[in-house]
């Protein structure tokens, strides 16, 4: 029983950054903007956290800085793809490359190390809840609780609010929304910025957990988040389910360490599941119709 709870706790904690990234990416894509740049936004968020926490000495300010870093990175993606209508996939790749270079550049210039930052404070566990056996590291972690609240709020925002209705209609048929006086640019930008804020939080979680920034520390988690969004069919609730699945498979790797089963094959799992989902073997995964298509009013 204890073992199982520990396993669940590990799975949930692993899935936190995936969840934040996936739910965020969903907002960008539901509005019609492909966001492969989640990885870069996470990475910049992680660096933001470390810089904020280092200079202020407070984890909370680090959290704030992480969100700002994610949003600023997302703003670049929005500028290139929404304002200038450039190719969204290429822009996302460019943003990931930029973040990879920028974070190392800053690491060298600020901390004089090409591999890692000094130790910074992490987010403290909430005293009462952290004492719960086995799952205390989940129930007591402020960012886990924040993520849970965010997921509920965001599910409502996407499907039960006027904003969500407008955003989704713009991702399906931007011309229609535009003829009703809605600004495609504004809503798409908002969607991308939300994804940047959530990705920044994901980066903050990673940096706070290990109390430092290390070169390339997101290690492809942004891509796994993207995969979870697809497997979750572009809905926050679905993304959470996919993220928990991916988190569980990673927790299993840790549990199985030393057992004969090769880890490399388990690590392929999220990617394989995503490919199966895209091929339609796990229900149909259909993206918003106008996703990836820049909106040009003159061609409408």
């Amino acid at each position, binding site marked *: 029983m204890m073992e199982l709870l520990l396993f669940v706790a590990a799975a949930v904690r692993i899935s936190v950054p995936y969840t934040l990234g996936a739910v965020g990416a969903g907002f960008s894509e539901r509005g019609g903007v492909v966001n492969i740049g989640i990885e870069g936004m996470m990475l910049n968020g992680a660096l933001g956290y470390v810089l904020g926490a280092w200079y202020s000495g407070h984890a909370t300010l680090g959290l704030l800085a992480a969100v700002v870093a994610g949003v600023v990175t997302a703003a670049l993606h929005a500028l290139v793809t929404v304002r200038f209508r450039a190719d969204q996939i290429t822009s996302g790749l460019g943003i990931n490359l930029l973040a990879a270079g920028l974070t190392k550049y800053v690491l060298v210039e600020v901390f004089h190390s090409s591999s890692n930052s000094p130790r910074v404070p992490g987010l403290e566990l909430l005293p009462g809840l952290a004492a719960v056996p086995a799952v205390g590291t989940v129930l007591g972690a402020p960012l886990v609780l924040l993520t849970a609240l965010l997921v509920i709020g965001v599910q409502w925002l996407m499907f039960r609010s006027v904003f969500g209705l407008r955003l989704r209609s713009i991702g399906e048929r931007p011309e229609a929304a535009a003829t009703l006086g809605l600004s495609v640019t504004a809503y798409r930008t908002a969607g991308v910025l939300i994804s940047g804020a959530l990705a920044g939080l994901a980066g903050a979680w990673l940096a706070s957990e290990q109390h430092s920034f290390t070169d390339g520390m997101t290690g492809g988690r942004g891509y796994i988040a993207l995969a979870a969004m697809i497997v979750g069919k572009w809905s926050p609730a679905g993304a959470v389910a996919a993220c928990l699945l991916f988190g569980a498979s990673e927790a299993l790797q840790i549990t199985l360490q030393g057992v004969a089963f090769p880890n490399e*094959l388990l690590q*392929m799992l999220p990617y394989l599941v995503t490919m199966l989902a895209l091929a*339609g073997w796990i229900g149909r995964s259909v993206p918003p119709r106008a996703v990836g298509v820049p909106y040009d009013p003159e061609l409408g």
Partner: protein
Amino acid sequence: MTGPAATAAPAGGPAAAPRAVTARPRLAAALELAAPLAAVALALLAGAVLIALAGEDPLAIYGSILHACLGTGYGFGQMLFKATPLVFTGLAVAVGFRAGLFNIGAEGQLYLGGFAAALAAVALAGAPGPVQLVGALLAAAAAGAAWATIPGVLKARFGAHEVINTIMLNFIAMQLVAFLGRYAYQPGTVRTATIPAGAVIPRLDVWFPALHGSPANLSLLLGLGLALATAWLLFGSRLGYAIRAVGLNPAAAEYGGIAIGSTHTAALALSGALAGLGGVNFVLGYKQFFEQGFSAGAGFLGIAVALIGRNQPLGVIVAALFFGGLSYGGLVINDRVPRELVEMLTALVILFAITLQQVMTRAARKLR
């Protein structure tokens, strides 16, 4: 675009001055061509700001990079060596783009290509020299092609988008090689055995002593030959016609009886073969063994190369030299400015290129 264009101007249009009618489309075409160059210029400008922020003189830093690449035979050879895999991956991405496909998987294809080349060479150790080399090359091409065929088939069969699938396959390729490495690596290392002499691709300094010490090798010549072959394939062959037709307008291609699925699959297989061959530069031409993690982003850089090279084989060669020079230059300036500057420059070139492409195309449309 001289005489007849003038007669085609809409009757009664106010802008019907004949000179304007012929000059404007030319200006428009020039604008579209200028986008990659302007992107490079703007990225270098932004890079200059970063260098200045780091307390260094931008002109001196750029001067060092230029001198490192063109000033010494060794540096020139290093640039050629860095540019070589980019020729392959740039061509790979360009062939994909021409078919309307975004092959983000060149990274994994190149990685598997290098791995397969090493395994094949080692396995053929007892065979005559030329057989070792040809076998290793074929293995590299086949591994890349096979890996790229997976997203091709998934797209043709299930309509699954190749972008996500090629990204996923990059990660899977890394894990797959790590897994196979359990059986293929030298004990206690993450590298294969050294390849036999027959499979080694000779270095260029054998013929050009000025390049002495640099790892530039005949893989470059293979890349240039493949660029020519790709140019013919795209613009002088029936398959190239089908690839371009499918890329420009799949519905019309289908109407013309061109099988979209198999054309996509063929284009991705070709793309993967090109990327896979890119792995031999390092494995057969330099280290003479496969080493885990050797690809180091050459596949992703191929996207930048294809973008700046405008998906033209000749353009790809020029762009590959540029990015090859940058990545060698980064090593040279590392004691003054972090070499990650080069990564940022590359990213900025990409972002500026796609943005300017839109801006200039729009400006050109207004002119026409």
